[in-house]
Protein backbone atom coordinates (compact mmCIF):
# COMPACT_ATOMS: atom_id res chain seq x y z
CA UNK A 1 0.00 0.00 0.00
CA UNK A 2 3.06 2.27 -0.05
CA UNK A 3 2.49 3.14 -3.69
CA UNK A 4 -0.76 5.06 -3.21
CA UNK A 5 -0.43 8.37 -5.07
CA UNK A 6 -3.85 9.99 -4.73
CA UNK A 7 -4.76 12.74 -2.22
CA UNK A 8 -5.44 11.47 1.30
CA UNK A 9 -8.15 12.75 3.66
CA UNK A 10 -7.17 15.84 5.66
CA UNK A 11 -8.50 14.74 9.02
CA UNK A 12 -9.58 17.39 11.49
CA UNK A 13 -11.41 17.45 14.79
CA UNK A 14 -14.79 17.42 13.05
CA UNK A 15 -14.10 14.61 10.59
CA UNK A 16 -11.91 12.32 12.74
CA UNK A 17 -14.81 10.15 13.94
CA UNK A 18 -15.92 9.61 10.32
CA UNK A 19 -12.49 8.57 9.03
CA UNK A 20 -11.75 6.41 12.11
CA UNK A 21 -15.06 4.66 11.43
CA UNK A 22 -14.13 4.13 7.78
CA UNK A 23 -10.95 2.33 8.87
CA UNK A 24 -13.25 -0.15 10.64
CA UNK A 25 -15.51 -0.25 7.54
CA UNK A 26 -18.24 1.68 9.31
CA UNK A 27 -20.00 4.74 7.87
CA UNK A 28 -20.45 6.98 10.90
CA UNK A 29 -22.58 10.13 10.95
CA UNK A 30 -23.88 12.49 13.60
CA UNK A 31 -27.55 12.16 14.54
CA UNK A 32 -29.20 15.04 16.39
CA UNK A 33 -30.54 13.86 19.76
CA UNK A 34 -33.20 16.56 19.72
CA UNK A 35 -34.75 16.26 16.23
CA UNK A 36 -33.23 13.07 14.83
CA UNK A 37 -31.70 14.69 11.74
CA UNK A 38 -28.66 12.80 10.45
CA UNK A 39 -26.09 15.24 9.14
CA UNK A 40 -22.94 15.47 7.02
CA UNK A 41 -20.44 17.15 7.01
CA UNK A 42 -19.84 16.94 10.75
CA UNK A 43 -20.66 20.01 12.81
CA UNK A 44 -21.12 21.01 16.47
CA UNK A 45 -24.68 22.27 15.91
CA UNK A 46 -27.61 20.64 14.14
CA UNK A 47 -28.30 22.68 10.98
CA UNK A 48 -32.04 21.92 11.29
CA UNK A 49 -32.83 22.67 14.97
CA UNK A 50 -29.55 24.15 16.33
CA UNK A 51 -29.28 21.62 19.15
CA UNK A 52 -25.75 20.71 20.26
CA UNK A 53 -26.85 17.32 21.62
CA UNK A 54 -25.62 14.68 19.23
CA UNK A 55 -24.67 11.02 18.91
CA UNK A 56 -22.76 9.10 16.25
CA UNK A 57 -24.64 6.37 14.41
CA UNK A 58 -23.48 3.76 11.90
CA UNK A 59 -25.28 4.00 8.56
CA UNK A 60 -26.34 0.82 6.74
CA UNK A 61 -24.34 1.75 3.68
CA UNK A 62 -27.27 1.64 1.26
CA UNK A 63 -28.52 4.51 -0.85
CA UNK A 64 -29.01 5.80 -4.37
CA UNK A 65 -27.10 7.94 -6.83
CA UNK A 66 -28.41 11.51 -6.48
CA UNK A 67 -26.20 12.81 -9.27
CA UNK A 68 -22.90 11.89 -10.94
CA UNK A 69 -20.29 12.96 -13.46
CA UNK A 70 -17.72 11.15 -15.58
CA UNK A 71 -14.19 12.54 -15.51
CA UNK A 72 -12.39 12.56 -18.87
CA UNK A 73 -9.66 15.00 -17.80
CA UNK A 74 -6.74 14.22 -15.48
CA UNK A 75 -6.75 16.91 -12.79
CA UNK A 76 -4.29 14.97 -10.59
CA UNK A 77 -1.69 12.43 -11.83
CA UNK A 78 -2.88 9.87 -9.26
CA UNK A 79 -6.10 9.43 -11.26
CA UNK A 80 -4.52 9.10 -14.72
CA UNK A 81 -5.10 5.34 -14.96
CA UNK A 82 -8.71 5.67 -13.75
CA UNK A 83 -9.96 7.83 -16.65
CA UNK A 84 -12.88 7.71 -17.35
CA UNK A 85 -14.04 7.49 -13.71
CA UNK A 86 -17.31 8.29 -11.98
CA UNK A 87 -17.71 10.79 -9.13
CA UNK A 88 -21.14 10.80 -7.52
CA UNK A 89 -23.20 12.25 -4.73
CA UNK A 90 -24.80 9.22 -3.11
CA UNK A 91 -27.89 9.81 -0.97
CA UNK A 92 -27.87 7.36 1.92
CA UNK A 93 -31.06 5.86 3.35
CA UNK A 94 -30.35 7.73 6.59
CA UNK A 95 -30.41 11.06 4.70
CA UNK A 96 -26.90 12.51 4.22
CA UNK A 97 -25.32 12.67 0.80
CA UNK A 98 -21.71 11.57 0.47
CA UNK A 99 -19.32 12.52 -2.32
CA UNK A 100 -17.76 9.25 -3.52
CA UNK A 101 -16.93 7.08 -6.52
CA UNK A 102 -19.16 4.53 -8.25
CA UNK A 103 -17.12 1.38 -8.92
CA UNK A 104 -17.80 -2.09 -10.40
CA UNK A 105 -20.02 -0.45 -13.03
CA UNK A 106 -19.17 0.91 -16.51
CA UNK A 107 -19.52 4.74 -16.46
CA UNK A 108 -22.16 4.70 -19.22
CA UNK A 109 -24.40 2.43 -17.15
CA UNK A 110 -24.61 4.75 -14.13
CA UNK A 111 -27.93 6.61 -13.86
CA UNK A 112 -29.46 8.97 -11.30
CA UNK A 113 -31.50 7.26 -8.56
CA UNK A 114 -29.92 3.83 -9.16
CA UNK A 115 -29.59 1.84 -5.91
CA UNK A 116 -26.05 1.38 -4.62
CA UNK A 117 -24.28 -0.03 -1.59
CA UNK A 118 -20.97 0.73 0.07
CA UNK A 119 -17.81 -1.18 -0.78
CA UNK A 120 -14.56 -0.49 1.00
CA UNK A 121 -11.20 0.33 -0.52
CA UNK A 122 -8.28 -0.07 1.91
CA UNK A 123 -5.75 2.42 0.59
CA UNK A 124 -3.14 2.88 3.38
CA UNK A 125 -2.49 1.63 6.91
CA UNK A 126 -4.50 4.59 8.15
CA UNK A 127 -7.33 5.00 5.65
CA UNK A 128 -10.16 3.08 4.00
CA UNK A 129 -12.42 4.83 1.50
CA UNK A 130 -16.18 4.27 1.21
CA UNK A 131 -17.02 3.75 -2.44
CA UNK A 132 -20.29 2.50 -3.90
CA UNK A 133 -21.34 -0.24 -6.33
CA UNK A 134 -24.68 -1.18 -7.87
CA UNK A 135 -26.90 -3.34 -5.65
Amino acid sequence: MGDYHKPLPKVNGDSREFWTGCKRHELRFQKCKACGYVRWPASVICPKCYSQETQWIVARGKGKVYTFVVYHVVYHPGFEKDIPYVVADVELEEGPRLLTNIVSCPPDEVICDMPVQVTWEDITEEFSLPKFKPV
Partner: protein
Amino acid sequence: MLESGLCNYVVLSYGHNAFSSDSMRRMLMERGADDPVFGHFGAAAGYALAARRAMHTFRTGPETWKQIAVGQRKWANLNPMATMVGQKMTFEDYYSSRWIVEPFRLFDACLMTDGGRAIVISSAERARDLKHPPVLIMGMGQHNPSYDVHQATHLAGPTGAKRAGEMAFKMAGVTLNDIDACQIYDCFSYTVEITLQDYGFFGPGEGEDWFKGGTIEPGGRMPINTSGGQLSEAYTMGLTPLSEAAMQLMSRCGKRQLGPATNTKSSEIILCSDNGAILQTHSCIILRRS
Protein backbone atom coordinates in the same frame (compact mmCIF):
# COMPACT_ATOMS: atom_id res chain seq x y z
CA MET B 1 -22.40 54.60 0.88
CA LEU B 2 -23.25 56.89 -2.01
CA GLU B 3 -26.70 57.75 -0.73
CA SER B 4 -25.52 58.43 2.83
CA GLY B 5 -22.78 60.72 1.51
CA LEU B 6 -19.86 58.64 2.82
CA CYS B 7 -18.32 58.80 -0.63
CA ASN B 8 -18.97 60.25 -4.08
CA TYR B 9 -17.64 57.52 -6.35
CA VAL B 10 -17.18 53.76 -5.97
CA VAL B 11 -14.99 51.77 -8.34
CA LEU B 12 -16.00 48.15 -8.80
CA SER B 13 -12.99 46.35 -10.27
CA TYR B 14 -11.57 42.93 -11.05
CA GLY B 15 -8.32 41.86 -12.64
CA HIS B 16 -6.51 38.54 -12.88
CA ASN B 17 -3.83 36.76 -14.90
CA ALA B 18 -5.84 33.53 -14.76
CA PHE B 19 -4.75 32.37 -18.23
CA SER B 20 -0.98 32.83 -17.94
CA SER B 21 -0.53 31.86 -14.28
CA ASP B 22 -1.72 28.80 -12.39
CA SER B 23 -3.26 30.78 -9.54
CA MET B 24 -6.89 30.34 -10.61
CA ARG B 25 -6.40 26.66 -11.37
CA ARG B 26 -4.75 26.08 -7.99
CA MET B 27 -7.49 27.95 -6.17
CA LEU B 28 -10.10 25.77 -7.89
CA MET B 29 -8.13 22.56 -7.26
CA GLU B 30 -7.86 23.17 -3.55
CA ARG B 31 -11.50 23.90 -2.80
CA GLY B 32 -13.83 21.32 -1.34
CA ALA B 33 -12.50 19.63 1.82
CA ASP B 34 -11.90 15.92 1.10
CA ASP B 35 -13.37 15.95 -2.42
CA PRO B 36 -9.88 15.41 -3.98
CA VAL B 37 -9.67 12.05 -2.18
CA PHE B 38 -12.30 10.80 -4.66
CA GLY B 39 -10.78 12.58 -7.65
CA HIS B 40 -13.22 15.51 -7.52
CA PHE B 41 -11.63 18.86 -8.40
CA GLY B 42 -12.46 22.31 -9.65
CA ALA B 43 -15.65 24.06 -10.66
CA ALA B 44 -16.52 22.28 -13.93
CA ALA B 45 -17.32 19.03 -12.15
CA GLY B 46 -19.38 20.79 -9.48
CA TYR B 47 -21.58 22.43 -12.12
CA ALA B 48 -21.61 19.16 -14.08
CA LEU B 49 -23.10 17.42 -11.02
CA ALA B 50 -25.82 20.08 -11.01
CA ALA B 51 -26.38 19.75 -14.78
CA ARG B 52 -26.66 15.96 -14.53
CA ARG B 53 -29.31 16.23 -11.84
CA ALA B 54 -31.16 18.70 -14.05
CA MET B 55 -31.03 16.23 -16.97
CA HIS B 56 -32.69 13.70 -14.66
CA THR B 57 -35.22 16.11 -13.10
CA PHE B 58 -36.42 17.87 -16.25
CA ARG B 59 -35.71 17.56 -19.94
CA THR B 60 -32.38 19.24 -20.66
CA GLY B 61 -28.93 18.38 -21.94
CA PRO B 62 -26.57 19.08 -24.83
CA GLU B 63 -29.48 19.81 -27.21
CA THR B 64 -30.24 22.85 -25.07
CA TRP B 65 -26.69 23.82 -24.14
CA LYS B 66 -25.36 23.78 -27.72
CA GLN B 67 -27.74 26.65 -28.53
CA ILE B 68 -26.26 28.72 -25.70
CA ALA B 69 -22.65 28.00 -26.70
CA VAL B 70 -23.23 28.64 -30.41
CA GLY B 71 -25.49 31.67 -29.85
CA GLN B 72 -22.97 33.40 -27.61
CA ARG B 73 -20.16 32.63 -30.04
CA LYS B 74 -22.02 34.56 -32.74
CA TRP B 75 -21.98 37.62 -30.47
CA ALA B 76 -18.25 37.13 -29.78
CA ASN B 77 -17.62 37.08 -33.53
CA LEU B 78 -18.86 40.72 -33.56
CA ASN B 79 -16.70 41.80 -30.59
CA PRO B 80 -13.09 42.79 -31.34
CA MET B 81 -12.27 42.46 -27.59
CA ALA B 82 -13.48 38.84 -27.45
CA THR B 83 -10.99 35.99 -27.16
CA MET B 84 -13.01 34.03 -29.73
CA VAL B 85 -13.72 36.92 -32.14
CA GLY B 86 -12.14 35.09 -35.09
CA GLN B 87 -13.42 31.59 -34.39
CA LYS B 88 -16.84 30.47 -35.56
CA MET B 89 -18.71 27.63 -33.87
CA THR B 90 -21.35 25.34 -35.37
CA PHE B 91 -23.49 22.73 -33.63
CA GLU B 92 -21.18 20.11 -35.14
CA ASP B 93 -18.18 21.90 -33.59
CA TYR B 94 -19.98 21.85 -30.23
CA TYR B 95 -20.63 18.11 -30.39
CA SER B 96 -17.10 17.32 -31.53
CA SER B 97 -15.43 19.28 -28.72
CA ARG B 98 -13.88 16.89 -26.23
CA TRP B 99 -15.47 15.78 -22.97
CA ILE B 100 -14.11 17.47 -19.85
CA VAL B 101 -16.36 16.21 -17.11
CA GLU B 102 -19.41 14.54 -18.64
CA PRO B 103 -22.09 15.85 -19.25
CA PHE B 104 -19.90 18.90 -20.06
CA ARG B 105 -17.82 19.24 -23.19
CA LEU B 106 -15.05 21.81 -23.64
CA PHE B 107 -17.49 24.25 -25.29
CA ASP B 108 -19.81 24.14 -22.26
CA ALA B 109 -17.04 25.76 -20.19
CA CYS B 110 -15.95 29.38 -19.81
CA LEU B 111 -12.56 30.75 -20.74
CA MET B 112 -9.56 31.47 -18.51
CA THR B 113 -8.61 35.08 -19.10
CA ASP B 114 -5.82 37.56 -18.46
CA GLY B 115 -7.72 40.79 -18.07
CA GLY B 116 -9.85 43.05 -15.98
CA ARG B 117 -12.84 45.36 -15.83
CA ALA B 118 -13.89 48.38 -13.83
CA ILE B 119 -17.16 50.19 -13.34
CA VAL B 120 -17.59 53.57 -11.67
CA ILE B 121 -20.72 54.02 -9.57
CA SER B 122 -21.96 57.40 -8.46
CA SER B 123 -25.22 59.18 -7.68
CA ALA B 124 -27.54 59.84 -10.63
CA GLU B 125 -27.22 63.57 -9.93
CA ARG B 126 -23.42 63.56 -10.11
CA ALA B 127 -23.38 61.22 -13.11
CA ARG B 128 -25.42 63.68 -15.16
CA ASP B 129 -22.34 65.87 -15.70
CA LEU B 130 -19.94 63.10 -16.69
CA LYS B 131 -18.55 62.45 -20.17
CA HIS B 132 -20.66 59.36 -20.95
CA PRO B 133 -24.42 59.09 -20.47
CA PRO B 134 -24.91 57.13 -17.24
CA VAL B 135 -26.83 53.89 -16.77
CA LEU B 136 -29.34 53.75 -13.93
CA ILE B 137 -29.71 50.94 -11.41
CA MET B 138 -33.43 50.10 -11.24
CA GLY B 139 -33.40 47.17 -8.87
CA MET B 140 -31.32 44.42 -7.37
CA GLY B 141 -31.69 41.28 -5.31
CA GLN B 142 -29.58 38.57 -3.73
CA HIS B 143 -30.30 35.07 -2.53
CA ASN B 144 -27.65 32.68 -1.32
CA PRO B 145 -28.56 29.01 -0.74
CA SER B 146 -25.02 28.46 0.46
CA TYR B 147 -25.08 25.20 2.41
CA ASP B 148 -22.68 22.31 1.74
CA VAL B 149 -23.02 21.70 -1.98
CA HIS B 150 -23.25 17.92 -1.67
CA GLN B 151 -26.40 18.31 0.47
CA ALA B 152 -27.87 20.99 -1.81
CA THR B 153 -31.43 20.72 -3.09
CA HIS B 154 -31.11 23.60 -5.56
CA LEU B 155 -28.82 22.03 -8.19
CA ALA B 156 -31.68 21.56 -10.67
CA GLY B 157 -33.44 24.73 -9.47
CA PRO B 158 -34.83 26.75 -8.02
CA THR B 159 -31.41 28.28 -7.45
CA GLY B 160 -30.84 31.61 -5.72
CA ALA B 161 -31.88 33.21 -9.03
CA LYS B 162 -35.55 32.72 -8.24
CA ARG B 163 -35.78 34.86 -5.10
CA ALA B 164 -33.01 37.25 -6.15
CA GLY B 165 -34.89 37.86 -9.40
CA GLU B 166 -38.20 38.43 -7.61
CA MET B 167 -36.53 40.98 -5.32
CA ALA B 168 -34.91 42.82 -8.23
CA PHE B 169 -38.13 42.95 -10.29
CA LYS B 170 -40.08 44.22 -7.29
CA MET B 171 -37.56 46.97 -6.58
CA ALA B 172 -37.39 47.95 -10.26
CA GLY B 173 -41.18 47.96 -10.66
CA VAL B 174 -40.96 46.07 -13.96
CA THR B 175 -41.78 42.55 -15.20
CA LEU B 176 -40.12 40.04 -17.50
CA ASN B 177 -42.01 41.61 -20.42
CA ASP B 178 -40.06 44.85 -19.94
CA ILE B 179 -36.64 43.18 -20.31
CA ASP B 180 -34.99 43.87 -23.67
CA ALA B 181 -31.83 41.75 -23.23
CA CYS B 182 -29.94 39.82 -20.56
CA GLN B 183 -26.32 39.51 -19.52
CA ILE B 184 -26.17 36.24 -17.57
CA TYR B 185 -23.24 34.89 -15.56
CA ASP B 186 -22.18 31.94 -17.71
CA CYS B 187 -19.36 30.00 -16.10
CA PHE B 188 -20.93 27.00 -17.86
CA SER B 189 -23.67 26.70 -20.47
CA TYR B 190 -26.09 25.10 -18.00
CA THR B 191 -25.73 28.12 -15.69
CA VAL B 192 -27.39 30.28 -18.35
CA GLU B 193 -30.28 27.84 -18.76
CA ILE B 194 -31.05 27.39 -15.06
CA THR B 195 -30.72 31.13 -14.37
CA LEU B 196 -33.17 32.14 -17.13
CA GLN B 197 -35.49 29.31 -16.07
CA ASP B 198 -35.48 30.47 -12.45
CA TYR B 199 -36.12 34.08 -13.51
CA GLY B 200 -39.24 32.75 -15.24
CA PHE B 201 -38.41 33.11 -18.95
CA PHE B 202 -39.53 29.49 -19.46
CA GLY B 203 -40.68 26.52 -17.41
CA PRO B 204 -38.51 23.58 -16.33
CA GLY B 205 -37.47 21.65 -19.40
CA GLU B 206 -38.85 24.21 -21.86
CA GLY B 207 -35.41 25.71 -22.45
CA GLU B 208 -34.60 23.70 -25.56
CA ASP B 209 -37.67 25.05 -27.37
CA TRP B 210 -37.17 28.56 -26.00
CA PHE B 211 -33.57 28.78 -27.27
CA LYS B 212 -34.36 27.11 -30.62
CA GLY B 213 -34.19 29.24 -33.76
CA GLY B 214 -31.63 31.77 -32.59
CA THR B 215 -33.60 33.39 -29.74
CA ILE B 216 -30.47 34.70 -28.00
CA GLU B 217 -28.35 35.45 -31.08
CA PRO B 218 -27.87 38.58 -33.18
CA GLY B 219 -31.29 39.09 -34.79
CA GLY B 220 -33.01 37.14 -32.01
CA ARG B 221 -35.93 38.21 -29.85
CA MET B 222 -34.07 38.03 -26.51
CA PRO B 223 -30.36 38.74 -26.92
CA ILE B 224 -28.25 37.07 -24.23
CA ASN B 225 -24.58 37.70 -23.42
CA THR B 226 -23.97 40.09 -26.27
CA SER B 227 -20.20 40.35 -25.74
CA GLY B 228 -19.83 36.58 -26.17
CA GLY B 229 -19.96 36.21 -22.39
CA GLN B 230 -17.58 34.20 -20.29
CA LEU B 231 -17.92 31.29 -22.73
CA SER B 232 -16.54 33.24 -25.69
CA GLU B 233 -15.43 36.76 -24.71
CA ALA B 234 -13.58 36.74 -21.37
CA TYR B 235 -13.95 35.51 -17.81
CA THR B 236 -13.85 38.52 -15.49
CA MET B 237 -16.28 37.15 -12.89
CA GLY B 238 -19.54 39.10 -12.50
CA LEU B 239 -18.06 42.07 -14.32
CA THR B 240 -18.30 40.28 -17.67
CA PRO B 241 -22.11 40.52 -17.68
CA LEU B 242 -22.35 43.78 -15.74
CA SER B 243 -19.88 45.76 -17.86
CA GLU B 244 -21.51 44.56 -21.09
CA ALA B 245 -24.95 45.67 -19.89
CA ALA B 246 -23.58 49.12 -19.01
CA MET B 247 -21.74 49.43 -22.35
CA GLN B 248 -24.86 48.40 -24.32
CA LEU B 249 -27.03 50.93 -22.51
CA MET B 250 -24.42 53.64 -23.18
CA SER B 251 -24.46 52.62 -26.89
CA ARG B 252 -20.72 51.95 -26.88
CA CYS B 253 -20.79 48.46 -28.44
CA GLY B 254 -20.05 49.10 -32.13
CA LYS B 255 -20.82 46.15 -34.40
CA ARG B 256 -22.55 44.23 -31.64
CA GLN B 257 -24.71 47.16 -30.49
CA LEU B 258 -28.31 46.14 -29.77
CA GLY B 259 -30.70 47.86 -32.18
CA PRO B 260 -30.53 48.24 -35.98
CA ALA B 261 -26.82 47.23 -36.13
CA THR B 262 -27.69 43.69 -35.03
CA ASN B 263 -31.31 43.51 -36.20
CA THR B 264 -32.53 43.44 -32.59
CA LYS B 265 -34.79 45.59 -30.46
CA SER B 266 -33.03 48.73 -29.17
CA SER B 267 -32.50 48.11 -25.48
CA GLU B 268 -33.77 50.30 -22.68
CA ILE B 269 -33.70 47.75 -19.83
CA ILE B 270 -31.17 44.96 -19.36
CA LEU B 271 -31.21 42.20 -16.73
CA CYS B 272 -27.86 40.94 -15.32
CA SER B 273 -26.94 38.03 -13.10
CA ASP B 274 -23.95 36.86 -11.12
CA ASN B 275 -23.46 33.72 -9.10
CA GLY B 276 -20.81 32.12 -6.96
CA ALA B 277 -19.45 28.75 -5.82
CA ILE B 278 -21.65 25.94 -7.26
CA LEU B 279 -24.87 27.94 -7.71
CA GLN B 280 -24.59 28.76 -3.99
CA THR B 281 -24.79 32.55 -4.21
CA HIS B 282 -26.76 34.71 -6.63
CA SER B 283 -27.14 38.40 -7.47
CA CYS B 284 -29.57 39.96 -9.91
CA ILE B 285 -29.46 43.57 -11.09
CA ILE B 286 -31.71 45.43 -13.52
CA LEU B 287 -30.25 48.43 -15.39
CA ARG B 288 -31.91 51.13 -17.46
CA ARG B 289 -30.74 53.60 -20.08
CA SER B 290 -30.79 57.17 -18.69
